[in-house]
């Protein structure tokens, strides 16, 4: 009896120690990780307007953007390709949250300076945040020659400003949706009835078709009774983002000719389709593209060369 009891204890001990070792990695307490959502959009711009994406700290982005004439112009103007307008810009990531930029556009020879700050980052894990929220602001200066230099001209009359909130959620690897309440303030407007402050609601989306190609769309709805003295249309853009190594190509169709908010929101005269004076259907669609090339100026902390 005593022997069998001892033996059974012994066998139990052996059985316990011979049990399969638990997964060694599970013995280590995992550090609580927050997984931040990345690449909600391929680029810092959806098409004409901003996306919630920021440049990483130390990254410089050189962008060349073109918008051509309307497709209506037909073969004589090579479907608008003869009438190119340009915006050249440099953007820089000061931190992972703060991006600053400057640009120069053909439209009204506009020079602009801008700033985008990421307030909230969509994340899961230890910190859970359903959306990304950014604030964007810019100053746009019309540098056309004064139409009447003899008159008293105020420099301030050529300034326009944008304040914009960008609220986005990446629903899955493919689908991102973004909402952008936007205010454009124009120091000088064409007539007394026109509002200096123009409010618009922007909507944008991205669907990835493959790992390197995505389809994007962007729409700015201008609230009524703000732009009165001139015809205006809400700007709509549909495009493709194509990435190849260090470049992102954004090819798109849009009715906006300008590439800064004052022009896109307040000075887009033609709709995608409209009825011309002769009763025929006309189109304000233009082809355009943005080309982005990034350069690393400051290497990230923690990275060491192999």
């Amino acid at each position, binding site marked *: 009896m*005593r022997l069998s009891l*001892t033996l059974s*204890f*012994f066998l139990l*001990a052996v059985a*316990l*120690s011979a049990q399969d*070792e638990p*997964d*060694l*990695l599970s*013995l*280590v307490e995992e*550090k609580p*990780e927050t*997984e931040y959502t*990345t*690449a909600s959009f391929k680029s810092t711009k959806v098409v004409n307007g901003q996306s919630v994406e920021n*440049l*990483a700290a*130390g*990254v410089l982005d050189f962008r060349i953007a073109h918008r051509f004439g309307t497709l209506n112009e037909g073969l004589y103007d090579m479907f608008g390709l003869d009438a190119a307008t340009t915006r050249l810009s440099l953007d820089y*990531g000061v931190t992972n949250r703060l991006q600053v930029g400057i640009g120069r556009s053909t439209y009204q020879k506009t020079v602009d300076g801008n700033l985008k700050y990421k307030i909230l980052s969509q994340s899961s894990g230890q910190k859970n945040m359903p959306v990304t929220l950014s604030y964007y602001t810019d100053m746009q200066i019309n540098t056309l020659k004064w139409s009447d230099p003899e008159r008293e001209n105020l420099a301030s009359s050529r300034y326009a400003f944008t304040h914009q909130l960008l609220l986005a959620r990446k629903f899955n*690897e493919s689908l991102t949706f973004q909402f952008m309440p936007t205010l454009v303030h124009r120091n000088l407007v064409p007539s007394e009835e026109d509002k200096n402050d123009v409010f618009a609601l922007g909507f944008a989306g991205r669907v990835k078709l493959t*790992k*390197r190609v995505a389809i994007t769309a962007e729409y700015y709805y201008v609230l009524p009774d703000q732009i009165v003295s001139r015809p205006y249309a809400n700007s709509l853009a549909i495009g493709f983002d194509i*990435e*190849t*190594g*260090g470049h992102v190509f954004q090819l798109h169709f849009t009715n906006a000719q300008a590439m800064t908010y004052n022009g896109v929101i307040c000075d887009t005269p033609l709709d995608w389709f409209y009825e011309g004076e002769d009763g025929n259907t006309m189109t304000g669609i233009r082809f355009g593209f943005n080309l982005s090339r*990034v350069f*690393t100026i400051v*290497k*990230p902390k*923690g*990275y*060491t*060369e*192999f």
Partner: protein
Amino acid sequence: MNRYLLFLFALLLGGPAFSQKFFTQDAKVKFLSETPIEKIDATNNSGTIVLDPAAGRVECKVLIKNFLFEKALMQEHFNENYMESTTYPNATFKGNVTNPGEVSFTKDGTYTAKLSGTMSMHGVEKPADIVGKITVKNGVISVHSDFAVAPADYNIPIPSVVTDKIAKSVKVTVDGTLKPMNK
């Protein structure tokens, strides 16, 4: 009876002490893909290594998202297009020392350990044999290992436009200083 009980206690008490484990959570894992056209390298400073000297077993894990690249865009492409790190967040290696006679984890010295086990990344598990250098000094175990990983083995397709820019075989190094685990 008492003698047996003592023996049993000794066995039970001795057991855990005998299987003292060692670990680190800040192992440095680096990789290099080098072709005549492009050099791509990244650093991960938060690798986990757990060693059970008694069982001669090693398990390692890295979070793919924690690899830091010189170029942020490259890092994005690595995560989005190649490793698909949202779907497959980790890479692991789990293996056993196949030459336990030549390695002592308790005696100071430098040893070459051969490990045989399973490498797992991008949702693919593959048998893998790697060699590590083990240095034991004052109860601290340092490990260093160089090995190579072929993206094709782990179902990581390389588009034809960049085939000349990404190496067929990517060099990996792992360095860690393991301390006793308080368990």
